[in-house]
């Protein structure tokens, strides 16, 4: 405190937080119609899907999810997933896990849908890469909680805000690794494609994307993991799910409930990680 007062005597404090708040309030007013619409669409969509999944008997949904895991990652990981899901169901957190999974799914879809094109542009354009890189660094070093605050005035408390802050928090790896994947392709390969008279699009589709796919998949895997961690944190603004259970346990000082929910998060994380890693590995083998 002492240093701050001393500083204030010589140079007046920069009203950084005031500025940011005025910018945000202007933006929320300007964009309120749009953000409210987005919020409604998301809320209804998520509510619909979660509601539908809730009507399914847990065992049916477990079998479907395990089937997907088997198809992608093989028997071993499928068996592990089956046991993990059974355990979560058993400790009474199945409903919370499903709503977390839905949030992660939506956030990842959005993050990849935006991150992939941005990553491609950053991979192809040196200038854009130079601009984007510090922004990505900034986004990843900013404490995750901070993203929660501006989401509320835009989208209100609830799932939409949770998804939006999750997208912002989890998008950097997809952008970064897509750009990296394209950039690390052997220069002579790109020259070869050029020398035959490829168009930019042909070069991208026939050479750069296929060859960068393993790296892109690694980026998407990281995005999913970050999305999961952020969705848990977003329980603070009413995202619900497993994070909500943890949050409630903190408020009621019930460490047992907190650890149980935390364990469920770990199990879900492991399943998501192993399955998506397998996708990346398969791509690498094929290429």
């Amino acid at each position, binding site marked *: 405190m002492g240093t701050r007062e001393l500083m204030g005597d010589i140079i007046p404090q920069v009203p950084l937080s005031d500025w940011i708040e005025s910018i945000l309030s202007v933006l929320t007013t300007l964009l309120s119609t749009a953000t409210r619409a987005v919020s409604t669409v998301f809320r209804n969509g998520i509510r619909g899907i979660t509601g539908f999944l809730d009507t399914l008997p847990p065992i049916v949904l477990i079998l479907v999810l395990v089937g997907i895991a088997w198809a992608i990652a093989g028997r071993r990981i499928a068996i592990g997933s089956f046991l993990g899901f059974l355990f979560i169901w058993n400790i009474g957190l199945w409903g919370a896990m499903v709503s977390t999974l839905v949030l992660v799914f939506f956030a990842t879809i959005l993050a990849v849908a935006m991150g992939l094109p941005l990553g491609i542009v950053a991979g192809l354009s040196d200038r854009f890469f130079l601009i984007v890189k510090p922004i990505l660094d900034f986004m990843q070093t900013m404490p995750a909680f901070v993203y929660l605050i501006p989401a509320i005035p835009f989208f209100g408390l609830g799932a939409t805000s949770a998804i939006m802050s999750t997208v912002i928090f989890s998008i950097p790896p997809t952008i970064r690794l897509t750009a990296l994947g394209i950039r690390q392709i052997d220069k002579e390969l790109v020259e070869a494609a050029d020398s035959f008279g490829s168009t930019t699009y042909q070069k991208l589709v026939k050479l750069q994307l296929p*060859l960068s796919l393993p790296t892109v998949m690694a980026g998407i895997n990281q995005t999913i993991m970050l999305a999961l961690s952020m969705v848990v944190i977003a329980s603070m603004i009413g995202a619900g799910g497993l994070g909500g259970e943890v949050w409630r346990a903190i408020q009621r000082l019930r460490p047992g409930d907190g650890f149980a929910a935390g364990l469920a998060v770990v199990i879900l994380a492991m399943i998501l990680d192993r399955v998506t890693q397998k996708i990346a590995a398969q791509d690498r083998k094929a290429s």
Partner: protein
Amino acid sequence: MSDNNSEKANVKISLRNVYKVFGKNAARGVELSKKGLSKDEILEKTKLAVGVSNVSFDVYEGETLVVMGLSGSGKSTLIRCVNRIMDPTAGEILIDDVDITKLNDDELREVRRKKFSMVFQSFALFPHRRVIENVEYGLEIQGVDKEVRREKAETALKLVGLDGWGDYYPENLSGGMKQRVGLARALSVDPDILLMDEAFSALDPLIRSDMQDELIALNDRVRKTILFITHDLDEALKMGDRIVLMKDGYVVQIGTPEEILTNPADEYVQRFVANVDITKVLTAQDVMKIHSPVAFVKDGPRVALRKMKEHGLSGMFVVKSSGELVGHLTADKAAQAAKNEDKWLDQVTDRDSVLSVPLDQPVRTLFPMVESGNPIAVVDEDHHFKGVIVRGSILAALAESHSDSTSIDEPSELASKVLTPGSNNEAASDEADKENN
């Protein structure tokens, strides 16, 4: 000889005062380079890297032109300027009289599709595509029908001897085979010009030599204009109709392999040339004695004997008055014929075991022949006698072509090579040492 040819042939590629400078404000680098500052001086002064400086030369249709230089000489930059994978900073590059430095992106792409193919040092095969899909690539991006392009790709694979390898992935192939795929990919689009950037440098020596031979044979059939980049002078001499020697971004000398070897433009070229095994390049024509005496069939034994005596020879070649080689006559046989009062040399001339070689026989292959001690006749296509090769004449020619450029001890090394035919340098000098002892 090459000059006469070149005047007749069409100019396919013409480089005129081409510069390539890397860095911001590259034009300043060009300016300084024009003022005569060296690459190092410009780098020190402005942080600009001069890749290519004032390079001008023509490549004629159907010619194989080799650009040769050490790493950093700008040769790889230069070849990339020719199809504008890199944009030259200044100068003109004419392909069939069209300056490609002035083309827009669409026009440039069209020229690349129709006129160029490039073969790369590291092969640059697409690892995610099968061999046949690699070969098809050029046609595929031109929108050629699947069946048509598959057929053309198969033909190209056959041409490079990789029939049946189409379904493999590049990673399953050896280095030599990979470069054959690279070559097939380049040939499948039937380009006018092949740009080969150190195409064989990554291959091990035996495979490299095979590939060189095959490219030469292949090009006899497909007749492409080839711009070939290498750092290996032996390769340059073998592949090139003409050679452009580069150093520090500029051209040091342009000429036929013989011109480069026998008349190096400056010390730099001389130093290069000094390392070359000259015996691979010189031919029988270069080392034969032209004004050697011969006996004519109509001469008769006494005349032949007198000629031998005059020139101090123990034998000589017999030719018809048309110049056609008949055989070889030793002094003994001539004396015997004279005793028998033969009128003609017919009966005593040895026709069967006589050694004769064409004009373009490489000197290297002559060593085992001169070893026997018998002289060799050099004949043209019509079997007309042109000259004689004896061991001494090879030595003399080698010593002469090296006398300007090499130090005093080198002729003896060369001599040792001649004395030990077919062996490599080290073995040769070893044996020479033994002999000296």
